[in-house]
């Protein structure tokens, strides 16, 4: 099920359809099969651990609230039923979401406060990487990389 159902009309019927779609989406997210709650909780814990300066003992920058907000929205944007990532933090103050299958099959996505996604993957002998802005939807190119890892 797609997370976003774009309703472009302005009539009462359009609004009814949009409301129903939103309710159905919420019901799906509450099912144990599709819940993202464990990932949200882990993300929160990482932020709490890393929001002070020098959180690693080696002058790491604090993770700002805006970075946490962006990472939370990135989790929300994942397709329903998508395997959940592990959350981490980096010394430059970015948060990371990682999908890991094997040491040589992994993808890591960093989220910065300005909403830029920086990603790198190791797919056997391939090492694709790149960056892209994040607004509300995860770029298909990044979802493709993640799918390659989780299906390996």
């Amino acid at each position, binding site marked *: 099920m797609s997370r976003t159902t774009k309703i472009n009309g302005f009539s009462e019927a359009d609004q009814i359809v949009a409301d129903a779609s939103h309710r159905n989406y919420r019901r799906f997210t509450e099912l144990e099969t599709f819940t993202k709650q464990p990932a949200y909780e882990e993300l929160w814990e990482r932020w709490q*651990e890393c929001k002070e300066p020098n*959180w*690693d*003992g080696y002058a790491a920058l604090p993770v700002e609230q805006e970075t946490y907000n962006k990472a939370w929205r990135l989790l929300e944007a994942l397709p329903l039923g998508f395997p959940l990532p592990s959350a981490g933090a980096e010394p*430059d103050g*970015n948060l990371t979401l990682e999908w890991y299958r094997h*040491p*040589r099959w*992994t993808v*890591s996505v*960093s989220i*910065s406060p300005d909403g830029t996604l*920086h*990603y*790198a*993957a*190791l797919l056997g002998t391939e*090492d694709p*990487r*790149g*960056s892209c802005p994040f607004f509300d939807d995860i770029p298909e190119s990044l979802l493709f990389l993640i799918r390659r890892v989780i299906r390996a």
Partner: protein
Amino acid sequence: MDEIWQVGHSIASELGRTLYGRADIRAASCNIEGLRAVARPIPPKNPNHAEIEGWPAKIEDKKALAIKLAVAAGKLIAPPPGTK
């Protein structure tokens, strides 16, 4: 080996954190795409401290190298019982 665990526990204690383990990587294994391990002692607490230098400018390039270093580092080693 005990010295390394002692450094780890000391830092964890200062930060109020729990030490869950460590991963080892040889200095020679850090020679990936321009990276190199350089001794940077922090006396008196960590005289054996080293840093990996030569990182590229772009974040995604740094991440790609970090993933490869993780492959070279191997598995997480849990602290031996009784080490504090």
